[in-house]
Each structure stands twice: as C-alpha cells, then as structure tokens.
C-alpha cells in the first residue's frame, strides 16, 4: 500500500514491541536470582542501595500513615507494597533527569532525595507543593490523573530540542491508563520520539475499581505497541528488575531511541487513603497473600543469602529509619504559621488590581480580628 495513509509495517519490529507473557523478574518471590535475558542483575552495591532506600521509604510511609491517623496530615495515600516500583524507578534517574510523580508517589520523592517534610507539605495541607521543582527536577505531585504524563512529554521534547542529555520519567497508575491524557501522552511521545519513560504501577485497583473493569487489554504493557513503542511487563515487587528495566529505558530514551511503556505489577497493601474502606471491595485473604510477596522482604532475603546484608547492617538501617521518622515527627508536630496574605502571592507574576483590592480587604479583616 502506498500513499499518505500507508504505514511501513514490519512484523519483526512490531513483535519486539510486545511484552513478555510473564512479568520479567531478576529476583523471584523467594529471593532467588532469576535469569532474565537482556537484563543484568544490578551490582551488589546497587542492590544494597536499593534495599536501603526501600527500608527508609517503607519507614517514611508507615510514619506518614501514623501521622494521618493522629490528625497531623489531611490525607495520605500510602504506597506500602509499591516500594520496589517507587524506589527502583527513582534510583534509576540520573541527577539531570526529571520526574513527574502522582499523589501516591511520595516514597519515590523521598528516594530521590527530597526532604520528607517538604514532600508532605501537600498532604499536610500546608501548601500545594513543598519542594523546589527546578532544583529537584521533580514536577509537583499531580492529582488529576494522567495529566502529568503530558508535562513529562513536553519537558522531554524541550530537552531533546536543546540537545541536553536528559530523560524524563512519568509515573502513572493502572486507573490513569483509562484517561484520555495517557493516550495523548503515549501517542505524542512516540511521534516526537521524546526521551520519556512511562511507568505504570498496576496495583490492581483504581480506588475500589479492579483492573478487570478498567481495561480489556491482555496487559497494560500491550498498549505500547499501539503507539509504536515497546511495552515491558515487569514484576513490580522485584526492585532489581524495576530498577534495571527503568534504567535501560531511560538510557534508550537519552540515546534517541524514543519512549518506553513499562507496566509493573504490584499491590497496594493499604487502602487508597486513610479515608477509604478497602474491605468493601477487596477479597478476603487478598492482602495476606500479597503480604507474603512483600518487596522489601524479598530484597532482604536475597541480600542475606548473597551475604550482602548481616544483622549489624540491618540494625544500622533500622536505626537510620527511626532517626528519619523521628525527624519527620518533629517537623510535623511543629505548628506551621500561615500568613493569609500569601493567598494572593504567585497567582500572577505581577499582582492584579483585583487581587490588591481583595488583599486590602483581607488585611482589614485581619486587623479587626487582632
């Protein structure tokens, strides 16, 4: 077929875009090494670093959940159980790379090195984004689903136009793959050959709706081929394979190879947020079953067996986690002083007259209250 509507189709190239039938693994559920063609186990030092970040991330997550129950945070969407996805992906980023996270990716932000107290500014209700977006090269945690994916594509395209050695990682959930913006982002990224990687953390539920009601695709990774990009299916509870596959996709993107869609199959051990009742939609025994596949425990078992982790190292790591949690508790217990006059800051680069008038009225109210 010829003409403007003709597309060059090559069966072999197309097949290479399809995911494997089973999720890729480098470390299995028992902590044993698995041979995975095309993917190397990260180095010993890397595996230890990944484990450390997961232990600290898990402790952060537990602390944030506890703070929410105590009323210190407005809301907290836990990522317990998705530790391997968030840590494996975050540590695959080079310092110059950009990350576009969602509201459930707090652990990824902490793994990226952002101060946990700054991460929680949003969920504590103190502000909409507590960290410096440019300094951390991390977009604000995004609540409207999949909209962050387009920002990632745009930034990646701009970096490519500038000739910079920058790749971008967009984080999505399984529910977000039903949104129109996911479709637009994947399509545009592929057409532009933008240096961007989409990581879908498929935790089985969009709040309460299971994946079976979200898609009829064989896997979410199968969506890649429809856009002309590789779709890779990985075990999202294996930090080694998440890290290895995301790092390879980022390298490929940087080298001009275009975008990759990665689906990491995982499970959200906690409810959607503290305000959710997961017993209404989860099967009995489901959580217990996934607890036996805990990503942090899997990594621990592997490292212990490989002689890369001993009692002393574990104790030191636990102590580090406690120290970080204590610092976070102290930070969250501190009463934040909110100046209502800042409501008018940063709406526009230069305040408008309308805002100046409202600011003056608010100032009068404050003066009367004082």
């Amino acid at each position, binding site marked *: 077929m010829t003409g403007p509507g003709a597309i060059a189709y090559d069966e072999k190239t197309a097949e290479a875009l399809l995911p494997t039938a089973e999720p890729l693994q480098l470390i299995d559920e028992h902590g044993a090494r698995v041979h995975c063609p095309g993917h190397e186990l990260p180095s010993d030092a890397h595996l230890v670093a990944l484990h450390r970040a997961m232990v600290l991330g898990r402790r952060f997550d537990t602390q944030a959940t506890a703070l929410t129950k105590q009323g210190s945070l407005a809301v907290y969407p836990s990522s317990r159980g998705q530790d391997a996805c968030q840590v494996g992906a975050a540590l695959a980023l080079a310092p110059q790379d950009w990350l576009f996270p969602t509201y459930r990716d707090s652990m990824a932000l902490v793994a990226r090195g952002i101060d946990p107290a700054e991460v929680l500014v949003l969920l504590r209700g103190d502000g909409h984004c507590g960290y410096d977006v440019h300094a951390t090269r991390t977009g604000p945690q995004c609540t*409207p689903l999949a909209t962050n994916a*387009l920002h990632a594509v*745009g930034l990646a395209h701009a970096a490519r136009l500038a000739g910079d050695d920058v790749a971008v990682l967009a984080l999505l959930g399984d529910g977000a793959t039903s949104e129109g913006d996911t479709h637009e982002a994947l399509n*545009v990224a592929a057409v532009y050959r933008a240096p961007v990687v989409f990581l879908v953390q498929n935790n089985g539920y969009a709040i309460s709706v299971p994946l079976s009601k979200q898609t009829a695709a064989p896997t979410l990774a199968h969506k890649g081929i429809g856009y002309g990009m590789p779709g890779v299916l990985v075990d999202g509870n294996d930090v080694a394979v998440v890290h290895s596959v995301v790092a390879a996709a980022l390298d490929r993107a940087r080298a001009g190879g275009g975008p990759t869609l990665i689906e990491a199959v995982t499970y959200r051990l906690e409810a959607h947020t503290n305000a959710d009742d997961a017993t209404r939609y989860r099967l009995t025994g489901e959580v217990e079953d996934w607890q036996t596949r805990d990503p942090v425990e899997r990594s621990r078992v592997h490292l212990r067996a490989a002689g890369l982790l001993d009692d002393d190292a574990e104790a030191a790591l636990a102590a580090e986690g406690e120290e970080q949690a204590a610092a976070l508790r102290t930070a969250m217990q501190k009463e934040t002083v909110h100046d209502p006059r800042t409501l008018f800051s940063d*709406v526009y680069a230069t305040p408008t007259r309308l805002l100046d008038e409202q600011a003056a009225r608010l100032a009068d109210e404050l003066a009367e209250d004082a």
Partner: protein
Amino acid sequence: MSTPATATTTTPATDPTMTMAQALNTALRDALTDDPNVLVFGEDVGPLGGVFRVTDGLQEQFGDTRVFDTPLAESAIVGTAIGMAMYGLRPVVEMQFDAFAYPAFEQVVSHLAKLRNRTRGGVSLPIVVRIPYGGGIGGVEHHSDSSEAYYTATPGLTVISPGTPQDAYTLLRQAVACPDPVIFLEPKRRYWGKGPVDVDDPGPGMNRAVVRREGTSATVLAYGPMVATALEAAELGLAEGYDLEVVDLRSLSPFDDETVSASVRKTGRAVVVHEAASFGGYGAEVAARVTERCFHHLHAPVARVTGLDVPYPPPRLEEHFLPNPERILDAVANLQWERHLEDQA
C-alpha cells in the same frame, strides 16, 4: 509583510494596512525572530499555515522544530506546552476553533492557570493559547462558540481579545512576552478586516482598555468581534441623536476598571455587548463591576446586548442570534432617557 517605511517613501510608519490575520502572522514572525525560545505549534499550522492562515509561511522561515504540526490532540498541545515552558521555552499554541479547545480544558484550568501558585512562584508558564472564537462566519456547529467566560472565571489566566489589526499585533507580542499564561481570543469574523498597523506602537499596555470613540450619551463596552459592531452602532446612533462612547476592553482579565469607570461616570449610562450568551456570561461581571463602582453616576441600569441563551445556531439562523448595531441602539434607547429629562426638569 512588516515592510518598514523607508527614507524614499513619504508613507508614515502606520500606513501598512493589514488584515487582522496578517497582523497576527507578523506578530508571530517577529516574536520567533526576536526570541529563539519561542515555538509555534498546533494542528495544521505547518505547511498549511493554519486554517485561517495566521501561521502562513512561518514553518518555511523558521523550520519544523520551531513551527510544527502536532497530532490532533488538544490536551496534548497544552499539556506538552506546560512541560516545554518548565524547561525554558515560550510556546505559542493554536487551538483550531473555540469549541475544539475543550479537550484541553483540564490542562488549562488545573495546570496552566495554577502552576505558578501551586509551586509558590517556582514555575512560570509563559504560554500563549491562541483561540479563534465567535461566530459570524457561517460556520457549521461547534465552529462559532464564544468561550471567554470559561477562561475569565479561572484565576491565574490572563484573557485578551483584540478588536483591531493594530491590537492583534501589539497584544499578541505582549502576550508572548508575558511571564504568565495568556488565553488569546481571536475574533475570527474580523480576521479579514483591514486596518493600519504600526509595529513600533507599544499601545497603552496589555491589560488596559481604550476609548475607541469618544461620546457623551452612553458608554458601549465591547471587545473582540463586537468592537466594530459597537462602532457601527455609534455611527448609526448619531442620526437618532445619540453620541455614543465606545470602550474596547481588550483585556477581559485582568479588567481595567479605571478606564471603564471613568467613561461610565462621564456618560452616566452603559451597555455591555458580547456574542456569548447572557446568563452567567462575561457581561454580567462587567455590569456588576460598573454598578459597584459607578452607581451614583448611573441614570439607568447597565444593559446587556448579547447572543441568545441557546446553543449556537446553524449558519442560516445566526443573524438572529448575534448582536448587531440595531440591537445595541435599541438597548441604548431603553436607558431611561425620559426619567433623566424629568430629573432635569
């Protein structure tokens, strides 16, 4: 197109007469020339030059990395522009028609308008979203919406609409230079109207209204496509004994209360004109602001002349929908003149 006056000609700098589409094209060309960070993209803006030819010749001159066609995906156009602006670029994007901009609405409202505020000033988004809007061109359905109120109701957005070729040039240059996102509403029925353009005229500032025609009887407040209609009404009104002042709002948000209030206080009467429906429309905001600020100067309630509160009609019925000079003059005639005469007696 932006041929400057030379020493050999007696033509003043304001002489080159352009259509509004040509003025916009010249503004984009000059912006692309002056700042390497400016990009122009959207649907059919490349080799075709846009369905209204506003981007005509730009890809040829600046190449297809700076002027390019996107996939047919409006949310992606605005969403990727946000990511590009975060990396230091200044995207000027085109929505092909008013009603086709709606898929991008979430990106506009939840991110474009809010990111500066959400990041406490950390992220600036100098993005211009150009939207051809309004009716009067015989377009079939979904090609004639006046969507301004959706944008003016959103804090964080600057909403601009030029009514003349000169303003089309000046305001678009200022919108591109603006550190904040600008919704730039182009009155498509005026694309082919000609007028003088002086590319060196800085105008009164992007967020200022201007008095287009001085008068004493009443103030007609208009913007975009209705500026020409209001001026026509003012000419016709002379025969009926009205000397109308016409104010071109130019900047829908922020709103220039100062210029508007000064005019209404002078004339004591005001009529707001727009193509969009009246209920919950932009004119309601204008009428409220004028009433709040000029109440003791008003001889009559502020009147509105607007499109009807129905979905935009098929082309063969649009003349009955759109405000015209006669409806403006009818509204003027109803501004309680007899009471004023009684008061004076």
